[in-house]
């Protein structure tokens, strides 16, 4: 999923100061799962902002809405009837959702309520960790299902480096050495010969190397 964290309230309060009628829009997808921008978080943030501005003597009029997805034009249409009744939108979606709201509703300012972080997985309740950088050319089949691009601090394709100590990374002892994880997994699979195969220098163009990316499926395109 795409993970995100709420921006500091101070920053949100500052960007809403010039406005009175706010549409606070959550998203039912990734940011709901990582407890950053789902219906519940919309309710909490709405209460917090309401209380702050009421205390300041400048009460806001906040409408709460949570869309199935903000990154799909079909769902965004649900916002349309509200748009002439609000001065600004505060989106609790990831950066993709915020941009789609801005693209669809050109007349209304849109602000992000979250800082979008990374594509990750839930390690335990309340903790999410980076797992994929969308490099566009997956190597997980050769590395025992552990990604050296997203989990090795140096993105080494043929690791580990000299900074791997007792299975931990030199960048931070809280980070597992990805290549230690890869080795352990290959051993468990009985496929240590894969470790001997050198992965060639990576072509970064399918990643961000050739600018913003698009996927076009001719069979589905209209």
């Amino acid at each position: 999923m795409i993970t995100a964290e709420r921006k500091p309230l101070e920053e949100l309060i500052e960007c809403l100061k010039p406005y009175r009628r706010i549409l606070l829009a959550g998203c039912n997808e990734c940011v709901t799962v990582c407890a950053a921008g789902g219906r519940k978080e919309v309710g909490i943030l709405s209460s917090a902002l309401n209380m702050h501005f009421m205390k300041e003597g400048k009460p806001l009029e906040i409408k709460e809405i949570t869309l199935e997805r903000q990154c799909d034009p079909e769902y965004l249409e649900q916002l349309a009837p509200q748009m002439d009744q609000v001065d600004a939108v505060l989106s609790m979606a990831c950066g993709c959702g915020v941009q789609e709201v801005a693209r669809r509703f050109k007349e209304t300012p849109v602000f992000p309520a979250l800082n979008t972080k990374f594509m990750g997985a839930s390690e335990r309740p309340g903790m999410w960790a980076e797992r994929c950088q969308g490099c566009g050319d997956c190597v997980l089949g050769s590395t025992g299902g552990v990604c050296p691009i997203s989990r090795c601090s140096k993105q080494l394709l043929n690791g580990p480096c000299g900074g791997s100590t007792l299975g931990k990374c030199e960048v931070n002892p809280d980070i597992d050495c990805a290549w230690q994880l890869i080795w352990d997994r290959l051993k468990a699979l009985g496929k240590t010969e894969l470790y001997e195969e050198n992965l060639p220098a990576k072509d970064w163009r399918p990643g961000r190397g050739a600018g913003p990316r698009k996927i076009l499926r001719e069979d589905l395109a209209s």
Partner: protein
Amino acid sequence: MENFEPVIVAYCCHYCAYTAADMAGSMRLRYPANVKIIRVPCTGKVDAIHIMKALEKGADGVYVAGCLEGDCHFKNGNTRAARRLAYVKKLLDDIGIGGERVEMFLMSAGMGERFAQTASDFTEKIRTLGPNPVKAALGEAKRAVG
């Protein structure tokens, strides 16, 4: 200000604090009528949104009363509630309402006296803090409309 009677919402666990309130009643102990009890199956059920909405609607203080450490009927609901409360306190500090308006207390079902004492102490604490600043603004808004 001298007539200020705080409204306090207390989320009480069915297995301890709620029963302790019952016990306080059986023991004919007095505690302030300011405290409005909401029974919950476990304090682990209490979410940040419940506390925030209570304050937004005009409560002057909110407390969550759960089982003693290690005694949660559902193993660790009370410790989860304590962590959520810490989160809400920070949120309230950030928006200028003040985290001291919310608190967590632990007690067992047999502690009727502790329940009554906690209710009295917390009511006094909120009385000292004064009304929820949101409530004052709410009142003004209502007066302006009326």
